[in-house]
């Protein structure tokens, strides 16, 4: 296969899922919003839990159907995961969205808010990796 075919296929699947969720349920496929809605017990919640169930099981189906091995577990420590997760959760709730809600869906709706948010979190992600790897020499 041509280089970058698999990431492109993955992206197209993610986009197709977002379009189907909007077409059938009228909902935005923003993962942070769906997760927060599910755990904070919003009304009409069953679709959120089922979407999350699919999200959990989908990768297992893919790996077992294609024989693709799981990714190598992160070499970082558990406390990197704790700090990263805390910041991600705080940030997406405060900023009302993540890579899927602002990035994939918000840009698809041509929402200025989402375009700005996406540029900001991408830039900050790049800046963080740059500082961690090339200024601090790793965490």
């Amino acid at each position: 296969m041509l280089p970058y075919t698999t990431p492109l296929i993955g992206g197209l699947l993610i986009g197709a899922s977002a379009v189907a969720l909007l077409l059938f349920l009228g909902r935005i496929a923003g993962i942070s919003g769906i997760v927060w809605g599910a755990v904070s017990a919003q009304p009409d919640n069953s679709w959120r839990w089922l979407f999350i169930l699919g999200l959990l099981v989908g990768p297992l189906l893919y790996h077992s159907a294609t024989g693709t091995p799981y990714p190598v577990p992160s070499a970082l420590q558990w406390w990197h995961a704790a700090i990263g997760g805390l910041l991600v959760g705080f940030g997406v709730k405060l900023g009302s969205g993540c890579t899927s809600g602002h990035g994939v869906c918000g840009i698809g709706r041509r929402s200025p808010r989402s375009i700005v948010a996406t540029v900001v979190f991408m830039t900050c992600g790049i800046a963080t990796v740059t500082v961690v790897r090339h200024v601090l020499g790793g965490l």
Partner: protein
Amino acid sequence: MRNMIALLCGLVFGVGLAVSGMTDTAKVLGFLDVFGNWMPDLAFVMGGAVCVTLLAFPLVLRRAKPLLSARFSLPVTKAIDSRLLGGAVIFGIGWGIYGYCPGPALSALLYLDYKTAVFVTAMLVGMALANRIDST
């Protein structure tokens, strides 16, 4: 029927994340490492997904209502304020530290690396903290 569709959408989304490499933190951090040994793969994930939504969302939103719901539930906030920007900054930093954003973190849970469970738990705590601050 709505629940069936939601489950299917979740499955396709999860497969997409796994196919694309988003559930691999090394690839994500490699993609964000623009000034180092840059791995451009994940640009094609975002690019592919956004192409689909850019083309199809306007067609879908031309409808009076979705196929299986009474109305579209779309975000109503328009303001580009300090909350949006601050949230995006904090999210981006967290993403750059470990390499997961919310979707891939959940999708990677059943790979059963305990650190992913730590990440997701901390993420839920972070959301609850932000919610508390938001509501004061």
